[in-house]
């Protein structure tokens, strides 16, 4: 790779110079990522990174540069290149009346020219008008409307990408990993869309700077805070409200943003007939804080933090709380016009507590905590190459369970010894324009994982009995696993409206989520790889054809993928996952594979905008000790998955939106017979995931009425209906004896949400 890089550095003939700088939003100073800066003949092109930084090397001369990003007015600038220069640009947001729904934030044919395949970009503007449950705007729910990304069902926030498991998605908030992204059992996500600038989901070609999860990376960036003036945004809804306040600390030099969100679902509990429910507390909150400082023209410091918690308590009965805290400190510095550096220090903590008696006498809990140091460099040697390299070092500590008992309690305090591990990697990649039509991305990441002491490490025999416990002292390196991860992507541009892309990834995953329940629950347990648990390994190949019509008015694509998964984890029959220091003995290992085709058809401009996405896919698992060793469909194996999203601007004040989703059901395990034992009728199970849940489909409608929209003040009302034709989609199906005749049995379906209207009010001043 180094040879190729050197070969590309043109050391002769025309002298080249580099311009670089930062691209910001003219209205509030926010950095803009994904902006395309190109010369008019398209010979030279650069894209701004997630900090708004770009670098473009050109031969000496005069050029007209166009700077463009969807949702902003395109800018043209004449530049004379005779020396290296620092040129910052700012773009004005497009006039509201002309603005259409932004389905991606990039120029017309970015989907043709970009090297990335299978990647999705979402901005809050996009989700503003899309109707969702209870009128709560949610970046994660909107993302699940795109092909290849499947929701895990009502009442769940997790998602499945191309047949992978729920834990195979790396979810980052300003580079800090978020372990549990759901509030209130997953009905809402922890991401307050008011505080978010944009989000990128990588499911196809995953760049080498990311690793640690087998199927995808969701990189969410928070807003920096308006650099120019104070601004208050808020949204008042039926179930929760959020408000954010941002502004400059010193105009154009530093700014801050504070956002908060809280639910008042507990107010509705007051109407319950039962006194215990009336006294119960049930709420969640999110708090996002961020500040940034331009220390000088080449250096910028960002400090951000997130704190969120769910609390549920019935006095004297039961209490349960869970939540995350993250903090990141990042320093950007441009060493030269061509070399950009980002150093980050990141802290992330997720914990939950269960109060078994509702009066704080005995509290059971678990925690996972990460300290992370990252150093990333972006180097732009010339216009044909974009090099990235860096290192990443994470110290993980998981406390699988501890019990705090009040003095005098019949229970005693206990702790399962924490597990400690180091996950460290280094990477090098280059994105190279090989010929005018062919662009290649190639990268190598070396990902390693070491269990370290102090801690207890267990050995088991083949039946899962504990044979040996070895205790190690501090800093003793116990076992190292991992290896090289090649990442490749190719883009062959057939014409300016069609291209062919391919990608290949090899990725290790070192920490795993153990969850044995149908709903993603906050008590799901994260465990590290070890002697007994090998890292998951994913290999994914994909190929896609992208084609735009009518001058990029319509975009379409079809992508086909195949994913191979090794060292997948499942549980022994009757596995005890709760508070079990030897939980590794409850696990069984096998393999998985998934393949499918994703179709996407989008219209980005005009009065009517939206998209149609369809995925045809299959995902299977095979474990020697499950289902008699025969392959069986994974729970998330849904053959067909379709989403239709449309927005229609009735007028400048009224926007109508609709979403229709349809998917065939999950694979589930149902009985193939029954018998009586210990006086009870139970099902006889012979097949894992041999049945299917009924088909799921739902229509959501929304209407946004913009009451006021001036330079200073904006306000709008949003009316939405979730599940407009009130279909009873099955949440689960169970089988039980009939009440009137216990000798007979029946199937019962429970569905969660029928017709749910809601109203919310949004304001900005």
């Amino acid at each position, binding site marked *: 790779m180094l040879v190729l890089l050197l070969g590309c550095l043109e050391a002769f003939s025309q002298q080249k110079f580099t311009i670089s700088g930062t691209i910001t939003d003219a209205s509030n100073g926010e950095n803009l990522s994904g902006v395309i800066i190109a010369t008019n003949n398209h010979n030279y092109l650069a894209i701004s990174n997630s900090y708004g930084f770009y670098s473009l090397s050109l031969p000496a001369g005069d050029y007209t540069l166009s700077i463009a990003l969807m949702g902003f007015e395109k800018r043209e600038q004449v530049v004379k290149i005779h020396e290296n220069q620092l040129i910052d640009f700012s773009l004005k947001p497009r006039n509201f009346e002309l603005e259409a729904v932004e389905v991606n934030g990039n120029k017309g044919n970015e989907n043709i020219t970009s090297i990335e395949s299978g990647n999705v970009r979402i901005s809050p503007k996009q989700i503003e008008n899309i109707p969702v449950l209870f009128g709560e705007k949610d970046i994660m729910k909107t993302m699940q409307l795109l092909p290849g990304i499947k929701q895990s069902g009502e009442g769940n926030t997790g998602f499945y990408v191309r047949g992978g498991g729920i834990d195979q998605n790396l979810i980052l908030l300003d580079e800090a990993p978020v372990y549990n992204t759901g509030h209130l059992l997953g009905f809402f996500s922890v991401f307050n869309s008011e505080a978010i600038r944009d989000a990128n989901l990588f499911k196809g070609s995953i760049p080498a700077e990311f690793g640690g999860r087998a199927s995808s990376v969701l990189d969410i960036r928070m807003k920096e805070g308006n650099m120019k003036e104070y601004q208050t945004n808020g949204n008042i809804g039926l179930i929760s409200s959020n408000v954010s306040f941002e502004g400059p600390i010193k105009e154009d030099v530093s700014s801050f943003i504070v956002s908060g969100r809280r639910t008042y679902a507990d107010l509705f509990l007051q109407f319950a007939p*039962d006194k215990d429910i009336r006294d119960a507390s049930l709420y969640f909150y999110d708090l996002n804080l961020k500040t940034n400082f331009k220390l000088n023209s080449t250096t910028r410091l960002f400090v951000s933090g997130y704190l969120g918690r769910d609390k*549920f308590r019935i006095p004297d009965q039961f209490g349960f709380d869970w939540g995350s805290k993250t903090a990141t400190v990042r320093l950007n510095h441009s060493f030269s016009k061509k070399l950009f550096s980002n150093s980050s220090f990141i802290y992330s903590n997720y914990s939950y507590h269960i109060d078994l008696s509702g009066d704080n006498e005995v509290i059971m809990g678990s925690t996972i905590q990460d300290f992370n140091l990252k150093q990333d460099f972006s180097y732009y040697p010339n216009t044909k190459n974009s090099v990235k390299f860096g290192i990443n070092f994470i110290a993980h500590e998981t406390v699988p369970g501890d019990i705090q008992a009040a003095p005098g309690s019949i229970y005693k305090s206990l702790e399962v010894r924490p597990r400690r591990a180091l996950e460290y990697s280094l990477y090098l990649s280059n994105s190279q324009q090989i010929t005018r039509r062919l662009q290649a991305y190639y990268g190598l990441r070396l990902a390693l994982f070491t269990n370290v002491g102090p801690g207890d490490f267990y050995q088991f025999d083949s039946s899962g009995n504990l044979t040996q416990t070895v205790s190690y002292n501090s800093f003793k390196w116990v076992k190292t696993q991992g290896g090289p991860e090649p990442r490749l992507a190719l883009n062959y541009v057939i014409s300016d409206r069609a291209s062919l892309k391919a990608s290949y990834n090899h990725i290790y995953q070192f920490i795993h989520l153990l969850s*044995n329940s*149908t709903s993603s629950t906050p008590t799901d347990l994260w465990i590290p790889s070890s002697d007994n648990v090998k890292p998951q390994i994913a290999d994914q190949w994909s190929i896609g054809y992208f084609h735009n019509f009518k001058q990029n008015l319509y975009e379409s694509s079809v992508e086909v993928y195949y994913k191979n998964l090794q060292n997948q984890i499942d549980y022994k*029959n*009757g596995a005890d996952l709760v508070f079990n220091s030897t939980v590794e003995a409850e696990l069984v290992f096998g393999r998985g594979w998934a393949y499918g085709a994703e179709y996407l058809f989008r219209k980005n401009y005009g009065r009517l905008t939206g998209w149609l996405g369809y995925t045809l896919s299959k995902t299977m698992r095979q474990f020697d000790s499950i289902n008699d060793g025969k392959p069986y469909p994974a729970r998330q194996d849904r053959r067909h998955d379709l989403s239709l999203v449309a927005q229609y601007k009735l007028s400048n004040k009224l926007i109508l939106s609709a979403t229709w989703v349809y998917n065939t059901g999950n694979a589930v395990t149902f009985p*193939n017979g029954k018998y009586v034992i210990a006086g009870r009728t139970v099902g006889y199970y012979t097949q894992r995931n041999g049945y299917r849940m009924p088909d799921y489909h739902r229509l959501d409608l929304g209407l946004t009425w913009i009451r006021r929209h001036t330079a200073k003040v904006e306000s709008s009302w949003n009316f939405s209906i979730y599940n407009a034709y009130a279909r009873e989609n099955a949440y689960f*199906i169970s089988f039980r004896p009939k009440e009137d005749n216990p000798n*007979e049995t029946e*199937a019962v379906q429970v569905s969660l949400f029928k017709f749910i209207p809601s109203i919310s009010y949004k304001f900005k001043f």
Partner: protein
Amino acid sequence: MSNKLIIFLCFIASGFLYSCEKVIDYDLNTSQSAIVIEATVADGNEPFKVMISKTAPYFGSSQSTEVSGATVSIKADGGKQRYFTEVSPGLYQLSKVLAAKRTWYTIYVEYEGITYTARSYLNDMVPIVDCTVSYFDGFGILDSGYKINCFIKDPPNIENYYQIKMYVNGKLVNNEGEMDVYSDKLFDGKVIGLVQNSSNVFKESDTVLIEVQAIDKAAYNYFSTLESISGLDIIASASPSNPISNFDNGALGYFSAYSYDQRTVVISRLLSKQN
């Protein structure tokens, strides 16, 4: 425990979030029938009992078919093999035999050419120290009434498992999806309060016979996994499967040898409600 947690959460979530339940038609296949054996050996005067049946199609009016004509025998380690008599279809008994504590028992069931065996260890009796009655205020779908908690002194340094059976006014308390089984994992060697797990509540002047059984690990594993596939708990499990049986050759069911202590409590009004 984690199952109870799920139930609470789902109940709260669905309780006021507009959910609904309806009976539906769902076609289930029927697999080849398997044999179901329920065998108990108790350290007391009652006969050793084995009940044998077969699985039946899920939707059908017959529960399961009794199996007649099987050959059932039992052997204590170091003892003679003794044969059971079929006293009624599917029910086999061996009377007038004393069970020995701290002994391994092996049961043999021979039917249609296949022999199914299981072993269970009959533990020492763990006496009941005390049984107390407390008033439960009721919550949501759970009624208010009296509940019984039993205290035992757990033998230290060995793994102990317990099951509690209650008979109210002569009738066995047997609710779908609830088993009162306990392990001493977190409480080894202490006086443990075995808090009533099941949602049943008792009324004033009920006569409750409480039986605390000292069971072995295999029986505890069986009953815990049985709990997770019966009643409400089944919704919590992503992949229900047959409870872990100590029988071989694919027989469903269990063999439990246990010793027990009993106490009778007559529920009378508490002078002051306990919290």
